[in-house]
Every structure is written in C-alpha cells, then in structure tokens.
C-alpha cells in the first residue's frame, strides 16, 4: 500500500472534493481517498500492484481536474 498526496489546483468548491472522493468507488486498487478543497489536495491510499500514479491522474482528469503528485509515503 502507498499513500500518495496529489495537488489539485483547480478545485473550486467543496463539491469538487466530494467528486474526487467518489473515485474510491470506481478505481480498482484504491483503499481510501481524502480530498480537501481547503488545502487543494487529494490523498490516495492505494495498492501500487493494481494501480499506478498515472492511472489516478488520468481518472482525475476524466472528472475534470488536473492532479499532480507531490508526495508519497510507502507503508
């Protein structure tokens, strides 16, 4: 499992955070997503054997946002 923090600069309201968190339901390999409009960040905990950083960024893009990986914590 890896905990990766992404910067999502184009969130405009707290609903954007809710939208991003809904990726929890659709992205296989994701354990948990915590998005914050206040910090413009999204922390994704995922299984790196099933999912890549690029796939997450692509999924975020599909939701209409641009994510950039900024920090990772291997657990």
């Amino acid at each position: 499992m890896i905990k990766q923090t992404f910067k999502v600069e184009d969130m405009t309201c707290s609903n954007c955070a809710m939208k991003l968190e809904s990726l929890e339901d659709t992205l296989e390999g994701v354990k948990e997503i915590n998005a914050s409009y206040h910090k413009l960040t999204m922390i994704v905990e995922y299984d790196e054997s099933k999912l890549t950083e690029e796939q997450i960024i692509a999924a975020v893009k599909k939701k209409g946002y641009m994510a950039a990986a900024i920090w990772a914590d291997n657990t």
Partner: protein
Amino acid sequence: MSKNQTKSIDLVVVVMIGIVFLAIAIALFIVPSETVPTNTSSAMSQMMVAFITGITTGGLSCLAVQGGLLASSLAHQIEQDYIAHAPTIHPKKHAKKIEAVPVPRVNSALPIFLFLVAKLVAYTLLGALLGWLGSFLTLSPVTRALLMIAIGIFMIGNALRMFNVHPIFRYFSIEPPKFITRYIRKTAKGTDTAMPIFLGLLTVFIPCGVTQAMMATALGTGSAMFGAALMFAFTLGTSPVFFVIAYLTTELGARLEKFFMRFVAIVVLILGLVTLDGGLNLMGSPLSLQNLTRSWSTQPSDSVPAAAPSASDGSLILNVENNGYFPAILRAPAGKNLTLNLITDKTYSCSRDFVIPALNYYQLLPASGTVQVTIPPQAAGSKLFFTCSMGMYTGQIVFE
C-alpha cells in the same frame, strides 16, 4: 436531439415551474391564514418578505452553498444518461461525428425537482422545530445583531472565496463531514430517485447565509406552525431560482456555470455587506453605512432644519411608517429627560420592531397607535441611534 425530446423537456420545465408557482399561491394565501398566531396582516407581510427574500437573494445564495449537493445528485443522473447514450466503440475517424451527437437529458429536470421538494420538506420541518424552540427563548437585539454580523462576515468571506481572492477564504466553504459524503455515496448508489431526495434533505445541514438569517427569524416567531410556514415560504421562494439556474447549467455546461458563479459571488458579496451593515445598525454602531452617511450629511448641522425638528418641551415625535422612520434625524436638548412618541398608522413592516440599542430598549409597536419611550438625559454632542429589529430602517437623535 429530436424535436419530440426537446418538446418533452420544455413540457417538464413548464410543468415544474407551474407547480412551483401554484405552491407559491398556496403558501401566500392559504397557509398564512390558518397558521397565524396573532396578527394576520403582520404574519402575511412577514411571509411575503420571506418569500421575496427567497426568490430574490436566497436562491442565489443557497445555490452558492448547496449547489455542490445538487450537482452531486445530478452527476449520477447525467453519468447514467451519458453511459446510456455514449457509443461503445470510438473509431478515430468518426470521433468528431460521435462527439457532435448531443446526449439527451430528458431526465435532468426530475432530480432537480426531487431535490427541491426534499429541501422544501426538510426546511419546513426545521422551521417548525425552530419556531417551537423559539417559544422557549427570545433572541435579544444584541444576539440578533451578533448573529447578523457573523452571517455578514460568512457571506463576504464566501464571495471573496468565489472570486479566488486569497486561499484563506477557502475556509469559508463548509465541507460536509467525510462520513456523511461517504454514507450518501454508499446508500444512494444505483438509485435514481433516492440520491436527489436524500441530498435535498441533507441541505438542512449546510444552510446558506440568507437561510441562516431566515432561520433566526423562524426562531423569533415563537410558534412551530408559523416558523414552519415562514421557512416554507422562504424555501419555496428559493426554488424557482435554484431550479432555473441548476437546469440551465446542467443543460448548457460548465462555461455558463462559471458565469453564474461570478454573478452569484457579486450578489452574495452585496448581501453580505447589507447583512453586516444591518448587524452594525442593530448594535447601534456609528460605523454602519447608514449612520456614517447620515453623520456626514448632518455635519453642517443647520443645513437640514426641516428633517431635524428640535424638542424644546421635552417631547419628540417619530412617525413609524412602512418604509422607515420620519424624520430620520431628531434633535433634542442635552441633559434633560425626554419622551419619545412613536406613532404608527397601519404600519406592518419590520419598522414596528423598534430598537434603541444603547438603552437596550426593544418593543414591538402596535400596527396603529402611539407608544411613549422615556429617554434619560444624554450628554451634549452625543447621538442615540434607533433601528428596526432587522437593522434595515434607522435613524438618530442628536443631543445638543
């Protein structure tokens, strides 16, 4: 989109708007007459004010705060529509052609409608609860003033957030707790009607600034029935704006949403300033816009004798009218006991809720009649501000 589909959308919109306006008529003419605790005309006018507040400002302000929840309820529907109508294979050479095929959104009016009906029910119940609670406590003018100032700051902060002035203003946006959003997602998954209804009910936890002000008013009614009727009228008022903007934005896309959000930000900013100013008025602060401008206009003190009658015999007359206090500036001798005669004549507006913050005087005046207020001696050069309980209408007594 075929002609038939366009027609059916139009029909849905017309029917929905028709229902909303029918409900308005019921709210304004039937509900008040059965739920009024004391004075019918006063209650009617309060309901009317609540409805007008809703239709003019509440809708936009609420959309700014609760739009997210509505968008969530629509997102599922739109996603479903898109999946249902999107082609499974995207051959590159036909890509342009496929993209040009519009996705029919015949159903987008329905989730908005369900969302708004659920919201209406939730707020009516909340109004009943607040009115019931209000029967046990009364909001003093100072508490109401502090509430209004807080609401004003909240609204201004939100407007500045929408304008993206500084990251700090993002903290004015209320983020629903994670467990709530997660719970909604899990329970509403796969259902088309439960999601908007549930989210509509949930708006009760994130009221916008204008709604909060209305909630305070419902609390002040001291009656469950009247509180419910007031919140019903207000929420009903917000519904057409909510419906039209939400419908247009989902139909016309994100570019228009951006435009509307700018518009909403401007309206919220103005409302925030007005609310903050009302709060300052109610505190009797000389820093409120009305009191400041009035001070400037009275600087060359003898220039407005007609508007500022002086009381040599120790009694002052103030006409309390539907659109304010006349004259707005009274002059009185300093160091003497005074009697202020408040005269109402078929006055039904909030000017009847008369407040002198510095004296901690608060009185609901009769619709017609005279009420006398004894004012203790004041120092020369001082000013005594008076206002209605909403901080809308103001005036002052200048002691010289």
